[in-house]
């Protein structure tokens, strides 16, 4: 008996792309968020060609200029152009976000997967993760920062470590679930070895939840980095990040509110967009994993 099937209409490639965009169908806000993120990434990459001024150039005569035709977003107390600094800030945001995602997903992902699959090592590793999770996130970051110099790479590492524990825990839970799936049993019965089960059978099922998790980590990292900058323990003060801009201009806000508005709004919009994107993507996830993802 032959079974009638619907014909294959799409090729693998177009299907991949449309699958990726599928969560955004019918979600206007999330689509706007995605568009905003793409725009920010564009600004970040092409910052030198977009900015009218050097973000570090001091212009004492023009200090605390209100937003206008020459300086779109005004200037700060050194007369530096806020617009240019904001654009360069996007660079820092992108760098910190991607760096944190990379650190936490690779290290945390590895720890989580290995712990769940090889339970003996796992019980030790997960205890370490538990201990680290006993420290509230920003506090852990603050303490770690006292051990390091203030620099971009150290900020990434420190925030990365904080989310490594969360990611490890989440992956641990998901791999434990997948490990008990019948298709894994079936693979074992076919004679598939441990490594292959982990890489060929379990990992591919984790890619979408990991992407969703990444978007939330990206968003959280922005807030953490801004808080660290604000407390004077994040990026070196000379680097134009949104957090540093807010931190420096804090005492001038009553005179120059634009110094508070523009970088603040940029942080909020980026984090909000990333959360929207993550939320939309999570809704299209396999329901088994929805509760595992720690997001907004």
């Amino acid at each position, binding site marked *: 008996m032959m*079974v009638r*099937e619907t014909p*294959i209409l799409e090729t693998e490639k177009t299907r991949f792309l449309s699958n990726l965009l599928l969560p955004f169908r019918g979600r206007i806000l999330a689509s706007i968020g995605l568009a905003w993120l793409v725009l920010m990434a564009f600004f970040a990459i092409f910052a030198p060609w977009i900015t009218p001024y050097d973000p570090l150039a001091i212009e004492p005569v023009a200090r605390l200029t209100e937003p206008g035709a020459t300086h779109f977003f005004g200037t700060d107390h050194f007369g530096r152009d806020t617009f240019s600094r904001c654009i360069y800030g996007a660079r820092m945001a992108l760098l910190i976000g991607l760096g944190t995602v990379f650190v936490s997903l690779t290290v945390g992902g590895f720890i989580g997967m290995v712990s769940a699959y090889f339970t003996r090592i796992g019980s030790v590793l997960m205890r370490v993760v538990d201990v680290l999770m006993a420290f509230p996130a920003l506090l852990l970051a603050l303490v770690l920062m006292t051990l390091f110099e203030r620099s971009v790479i150290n900020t990434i590492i420190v925030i990365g470590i904080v989310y490594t524990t969360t990611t490890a825990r989440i992956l641990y839970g998901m791999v434990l679930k997948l490990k008990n799936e019948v*298709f894994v049993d*079936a*693979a074992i*019965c*076919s*004679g*598939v070895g441990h490594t292959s089960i982990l890489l060929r059978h379990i990992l591919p099922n984790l890619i979408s939840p990991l992407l969703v998790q990444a978007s939330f980590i990206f968003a959280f990292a922005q807030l953490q980095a801004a808080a660290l900058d604000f407390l004077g323990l994040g990026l070196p003060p000379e680097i134009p990040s949104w957090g540093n801009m807010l931190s420096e201009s804090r005492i001038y806000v009553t005179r120059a509110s634009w110094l508070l508005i523009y970088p603040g709004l940029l942080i909020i919009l980026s984090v909000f967009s990333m959360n929207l994107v993550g939320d939309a993507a999570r809704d299209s996830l396999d329901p088994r994993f929805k509760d595992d993802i720690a997001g907004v």
Partner: protein
Amino acid sequence: MTLLAVDDLKTWFTIEKSWKPGAADKVLKAVDGISFAIEEGEVLSVVGESGCGKSTVGRTLTKLEAATGGTASLSGKEFLSMSNAEFRPLRQQIQMIFQDPFASLNPRMTIEQTVSEPLKIHGLAQSNAEIRPLIADMLSKVGLDPRVMKRFPHEFSGGQRQRIAIARVMILSPSLIIADEPVSALDVSIQAQVLNLLKKLQSESGVAMLFISHDLGVVRLISDRVAVMYLGRIVEIGPKANIFNNPSHPYTQLLLDSIPQIDPAKRAPKVATLGEPASAANPPSGCAFHPRCPYASKLCSQAAPELQVLESKHQVACHHVGQFERQVAA
């Protein structure tokens, strides 16, 4: 020739670790000392209700669960004591079909990947050129269009997925298939198709089968011999004809009488309400069935009966076998 010989197989699970050192952990004796053999090309069914340990038997024999005791040998070769690595080559011989066709296929792998994986692992074929025709052939044998190879499992219905699972197993030409409730998740009309397919493939290839099911109708159709399990033990085992025509354990009789019948003439009179299956975590003393048994005596609550031979190959574990009349003859 005996293909599979299982002797005194035990699979216990620790459900609660004892806090006091020295005190015994709380264990669930899912399978508690069962022995049976399967001849080459024979189909042995294991029936029983949920929690009787029938699935655990299958999972232990494929080493998905670790056995607590006992031995099992395939063509004379003991394998329960082997390490997983030693056992891996032998997996080609012992294959398993699972109950839920929606869960047993990896959602991220195409049908081709799923069916070709075992071939590659066991070195039966390597290049795609070699593998493709084999898969195409296998897929048409299980009643699927070979052109569906590039599709993913979610594009198929339950019955079709179970056919794919069967293809994955049959392509290794194993000598023993352990089928764990392979049709119970399917609709009636689809169940019949898959049963016919299994039966056809079994008789064509001569593969032996351990068929695990709760459905006596399905069991009668497919098996040569039947073993009835209750709370981790075999209470009756014998050729199909003996079990269905002359069920000798009260539990077997209860099972048969409980089946809802279409034909009023075949309907058993009302079964006496006799409680529910006890939990394997907390089994009754003596014969585990005695609290539900209409013929139970004092002896039954004290001593667990051993299997005794009734006729050639027909064995029953009951103290009072032959001492009571079944209420209705089917």
